[in-house]
């Protein structure tokens, strides 16, 4: 039973796809199928519009989420009315979204649902807090299209990453791009005295502000522009940039590498745990990559098991 045991050690886990059709939904269904629900209470939702029967972007068929008897789920009023197994309503939220309010219910039998949960990380966090009266042990969050913010440790404790041919159709490139995201997820926690300088990517900055500094706190996003300035300000004593968490890093791999090569460091205030990486070797345009080769290469590169859960229907 790959990685499901790891998931049970956390109170909240987000499943995040690096691209549409990267196999995230299969990954979520795989996890749900294997959860020991007889002694474990689980709630599932997604951020924003997800769980559509056909992918809104590419039009390819997309599996729905299957909830099991006894599981809690949250979705919009519209999707709750459209499709669900027999379910007991526990809450109807106060906030209105484009698809209506968020409905929280417990499935009384197994069945398929269309998940469209809270539309922002803040609303998601609020929903997660509202579950406290229902005795939930684990919350699973289906992160939407390239919304890594769901995976922020400020929202969920741990994450499962799904990647695949939809992200890049070239194995080497796919491995390289995925490994970079994994590297960011694993950025070390900052240890040391409170940095005396705080900067923001969107304030007016010049290299002089950073020159001669050892540690600089970055408020909000770390962009290429700021990282470029930091790189230019680097001297032999090095420079450490402290960001909130890995979801705040928005810079290119090339620049990041150049910064690190010259002795720069990036650390985070909060860290989320990466539990597993799942791959989908099929892309919506028909390209199919060699699954075994992809799993092996990526696993070697990131030092973590990588699973193709569609091809290998791993036993429980």
């Amino acid at each position: 039973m790959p990685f499901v045991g790891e998931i049970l050690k956390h109170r909240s886990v987000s499943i995040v796809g690096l691209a549409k059709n990267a196999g995230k939904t299969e990954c979520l269904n795989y996890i749900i199928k294997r959860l020991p629900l007889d002694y474990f209470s689980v709630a599932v939702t997604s951020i924003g519009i997800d769980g559509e029967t056909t992918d809104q972007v590419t039009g390819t068929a997309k599996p729905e989420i299957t909830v099991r008897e006894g599981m809690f789920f949250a979705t919009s009023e519209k999707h709750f009315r459209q499709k669900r197994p027999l379910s007991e309503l526990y809450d109807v939220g106060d906030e209105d979204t484009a698809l209506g309010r968020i409905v929280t219910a417990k499935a009384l039998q197994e069945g398929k649902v269309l998940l469209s949960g809270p539309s922002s990380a803040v609303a998601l966090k609020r929903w997660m807090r509202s579950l406290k009266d229902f005795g939930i042990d684990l919350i699973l969050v289906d992160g939407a299209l390239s919304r890594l913010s769901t995976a922020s440790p400020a929202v969920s404790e741990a994450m499962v990453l799904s990647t695949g041919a939809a992200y890049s159709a070239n194995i080497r490139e796919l491995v390289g791009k995925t490994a970079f995201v994994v590297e960011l997820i694993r950025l070390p926690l900052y240890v040391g005295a409170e940095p005396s300088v705080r900067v923001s990517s969107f304030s007016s900055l010049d290299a002089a502000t950073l020159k001669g500094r050892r540690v600089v706190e970055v408020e909000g996003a770390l962009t290429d522009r700021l990282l470029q300035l930091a790189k230019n300000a680097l001297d032999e004593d090095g420079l450490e940039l402290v960001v909130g968490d890995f979801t705040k890093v928005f810079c290119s791999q090339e620049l990041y590498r150049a910064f690190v090569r010259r002795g720069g460091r990036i650390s985070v205030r909060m860290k989320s745990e990466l539990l597993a990486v799942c791959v989908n070797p099929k892309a919506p345009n028909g390209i199919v990559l060699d699954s075994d080769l992809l799993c092996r290469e990526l696993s070697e590169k990131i030092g973590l098991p990588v699973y193709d859960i569609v091809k290998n229907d791993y036993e429980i």
Partner: protein
Amino acid sequence: MKFREIVDSPCGIRYLFDGLELQSGYARKVLLDREMMTDAAQIDAAYARLRKYFDLVLADRRRVEDMRFRLQGLRDISGTLASLADGATLDEIEFFEIKHMAMLAESLDMGEDMDAVIAILDPDGLKIGTFYLYDSYSVELRRLRDAVEQDPDDSQLQEDLANEEDRLKKAISDKLRPYAASLRKTLRDMAELDISLAMAVQMQVEGLTIPSSGAETVITGMFHPGVRAALKAKGRDFQRVDFSFRRGVPATVIGANMGGKTVALKTLCMIQYLWQFGFGLPVDSAVMTPFDDIRFCIGDEQDEKTGLSSFAAEMQRIDQAIAVVETGIRVLLLVDEPARTTNPVEGTALVAALLERFSGKPELALVMTTHYTVEHAGVCWRVRGLVPGTKGRTMDYRLVQTTSHEVPHEALNIARELGIDARWIDLADTIMKQQYE
């Protein structure tokens, strides 16, 4: 006039609205949609209720907090209840909303018929706030559900199940329908409870009081909560001020720059609104009288945004007020330094003429601040001003009635205390003395 329309009035009433700790978004909506009360008896009755909750806040804060905690679960289901009243068949989400609301009302000991409503939506007597179409609603429902579970691909069974569910939804809706009016009233009452408790707690936090009503307005110890908070942040106190006015007798307020005339006018305006919307008042005590319309004419930043010159905006605002006064309804008109942006010759004429224009209006209560010396038949108030012997450093903001309508000449002294260029101010002093001679 709705509260929504005046919440951003330049008098600064938003400070107290923002400070109101409402537990539900629905109560906030109800308060914003509340109509201004204009009948003294109605206002007195509202305050009698508020006093009851204020006493409860003082006597049993735990119970109040328990009620407020429950009210966090209050949702606006007025749309659902309107559908119910209109004869619609509701669905599970709407049944859930009604059950949730009825159980909330019951836990707060509110509403009639809530037992009956809960009994319809809780056929198994589980006393929990969740809902689905329970098997116990019909033997047929149970039979079909079992059959579908055995044979999930039988589309005929699925259709039969859907039909039975629809039949039950209609039956449950019909059973609930007689309680639609009672549910709507209870929903509204819970929002009012949320508002009253928030107002009562705010009275304690801000030190607000409950006034009485009478034929004329007599206020002692008024303060502006927003300005007081700003001063407190700078380590300073707000000096409380007394004031009174009545319909048919115009009042002017004169006094030094920085003497608090505008703040006094804002406070009067805010207090009048607060009273007619049923809030606790920022006063030591007050006798209040109701108005049908309250007009506050003060220049604000909005004028610049709309491209009007401050003079044009001010003239238009007063012009509108004149039209309202002419209708003969009871109007409280508060005007801050009219014609202050024009030359003193025409300015003085405009102010004197305005007082004349408003004379003989028995339903109008006019309070106007001004820097111009204008004689009139009404009451003139003066800011006490700089305290002698404090080298002009201390201002006494209290207002006193005066027989002389001559405005005090303290601007130069204040400018000196502010450390403004001495040569400029000395020169002004000389020029002024020459003019007077």
